[in-house]
């Protein structure tokens, strides 16, 4: 009798285990034709956003300002899950392969090569941007980055959230005159061996953008990166860049035998004084960290005279999002002028707004002008002037490959 009970028990466990993958109740997609549909269906739901969590300012902005506002406006509970893009890409691709629907995430923060893969892999829901009121009211719909993300047609599958540009940060206590171009940087690095480095490719976003910036100055082929080039030709084109960084390698931190694995680690090295420069995509981050007392007041940021890569970042809705309407409400709020202005504040995040300043009300423009007068941050004017356009996403892949094989792997 005893063993009989045990057997029953075992059978129950087996059934429970195999039952795990039963068919979840498939949700019937209700049509979202108008914004009213979105509001009625999206209110009082929960929205889970998967996003890179490496910047405390960004995290606080989402958990505080944004979370409170969407709660107040729509009764939406915002849940932020810190996750690097490659990780949520893998998660969503796996869910797609296993046809998991509904999934768990409603929003992702995405751009460039990840967007390409997401679109190719069919893990995004859309098109949805036509529905968004703030986008249609305050944004320049003709802007290139509203139709193309690194050369990939957006076609309504992602909504612009902000614009960023690669910014260099240095401590004026150690560096009186920071190098203003890659040519000057080489001289500077040779004079200060061991005091410069950049985050490791192929995995770090910032490091890859730094190398891409070098392509513009060193190959003198700015237009070429938007036309279609064959891989062989691109490799030929890369020669000056490979030579440049191979020459620089022995003068880098750790003699170029090791690189920081992430931007966060690079910042850490900078904070410890192990290196004299760091870099990042948050225009106002340095000014914010100076205000917070993390960096001394001698720390400043700037961009090269020859320009640095600028790119745009977006929000997208996964194919298996359980609350798509609510996700759209959050996107719309994030695109609103007030959320964009808040995000632009250097002590908050310091990310450039994506709206068209000409379409704004006078009061908002006033706020914008006031913020730009902050002395610790780079002015928006100097940024737009020195902003280099993003390349086609396949070149980004090739550059990572070339770096791994020719520069880093040596």
């Amino acid at each position, binding site marked *: 009798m005893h063993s009989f009970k045990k057997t029953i028990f075992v059978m129950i466990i087996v059934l429970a285990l195999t039952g795990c993958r039963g068919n979840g109740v498939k949700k019937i997609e209700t049509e979202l034709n108008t914004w009213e549909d979105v509001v009625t269906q999206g209110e009082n739901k929960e929205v889970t956003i998967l996003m890179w969590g490496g910047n405390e300012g960004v995290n606080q902005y989402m958990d505080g300002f944004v979370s409170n506002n969407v709660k107040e406006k729509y009764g939406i509970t915002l849940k932020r899950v810190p996750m690097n893009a490659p990780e949520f890409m893998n998660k969503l691709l796996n869910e797609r392969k296993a046809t998991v629907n509904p999934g768990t995430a409603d929003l992702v923060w995405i751009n460039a090569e990840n967007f390409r893969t997401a679109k190719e892999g069919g893990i995004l829901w859309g098109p949805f941007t036509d529905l968004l009121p703030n986008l249609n009211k305050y944004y320049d719909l003709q802007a290139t980055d509203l139709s193309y993300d690194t050369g990939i047609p957006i076609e309504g599958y992602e909504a612009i959230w902000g614009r960023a540009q690669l910014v260099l940060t240095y401590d004026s206590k150690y560096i009186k005159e920071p190098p203003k171009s890659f040519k000057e940087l080489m001289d500077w690095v040779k004079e200060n061996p061991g005091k410069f480095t950049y985050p490791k490719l192929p*995995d770090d976003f910032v490091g890859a953008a730094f190398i891409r910036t070098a392509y513009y100055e060193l190959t003198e082929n700015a237009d070429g990166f938007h036309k279609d080039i064959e891989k062989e030709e691109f490799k030929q084109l890369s020669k000056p860049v490979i030579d440049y960084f191979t020459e620089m390698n022995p003068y880098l931190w750790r003699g170029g035998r090791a690189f920081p694995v992430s931007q966060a680690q690079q910042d850490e090295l900078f904070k410890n004084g192990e290196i004299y420069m760091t870099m990042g995509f948050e225009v106002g981050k340095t000014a914010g960290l100076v205000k917070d007392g993390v960096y001394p007041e001698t720390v400043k940021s700037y961009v090269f005279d020859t320009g640095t890569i600028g790119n745009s970042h977006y929000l997208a809705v996964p194919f298996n999002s359980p609350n798509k309407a609510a996700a759209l409400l959050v996107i719309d709020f994030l695109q609103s002028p007030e959320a964009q202005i808040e995000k632009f504040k250097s002590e908050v995040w310091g990310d450039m707004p994506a709206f068209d300043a000409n379409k704004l009300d006078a009061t908002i423009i006033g706020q914008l002008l006031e913020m730009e007068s902050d002395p610790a941050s780079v002015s928006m004017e100097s940024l737009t002037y020195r902003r280099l356009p993003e390349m086609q996403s396949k070149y980004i892949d090739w550059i990572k490959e070339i770096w791994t094989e020719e520069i880093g792997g040596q």
Partner: protein
Amino acid sequence: MIFKKATPYLLILPILLLYGLFIGGGLIGIILESLGHIPVLGLHGFSIESYIVVVTQKNFIESFLYSIYISLTVSLIASTLGVVIAYTFITCKNKSIQTLVKKTLQLGLIIPYIYVVFIAMLMLNQTGIFARLLYNTGIIATPNSFPELIFDRKGIGIIWVFVFKGTPFIALFVINVMARISNTFEDVGRTLGSGSITLLRRVYIPLSSNTILWTSCIIFAYALGSFEVNYLLSSISPVPISARLYSLFINPDIKVIPQTMALNVILFLLGGSIVGIYGFTLKQFLRRISR
């Protein structure tokens, strides 16, 4: 009667199903994807192209040998330390010291790897605690003359972390086995005039050789296959094979997925065989020293 005979099998069924479903199923999935067959993502057909791409990649063999070097060093150091600690523990009759040692080992066992990586960065870096200490006491002239102990080509940082985590693991298991070895053996040995080393060699090691063997193999396999420590602390070249696999895994290009899975399969098969060889050799070695 038949029912009774089947009971043990039924009892083991859940775990078998679990393994079959998750590991076996996963493995089949991985093999299919490595052959380039992922219909949902628009990849069709079967070919071994991705295997060829992976194997012919620059420095592939180098990466593999480097990983073997790391795991071998780690498991040998950790096993030796573990056995020495365990034996000292057994021979030390002071209860309070024993408790202290055991607690320390348990602590070492439960600290997550990522914290140990962090500790390594804090301590072994050129701006780390040791470097600053030596610099402030004037033993080294500049912080930069502190030797490179992490992100270095010899993998010292990686080995340090794995030894830090592996030693308590082996020591605790071996202590448990050695503690159960009857005192009679020792008494007889002592009467016959054996010293501590002889006792360890001819009594304790032979009687706990199984445990030493499989704990050592686990440490070896883990150092070979796990990526985070390898990824975070390696220099740019050579790259441990598991760190390489992780880089492939997070590559956003869909076309790279088959290659990732191919490397996965290769690592699974080769890794398994290497652990087997390691285990076999270690077994012979343990047998030899107890003679």
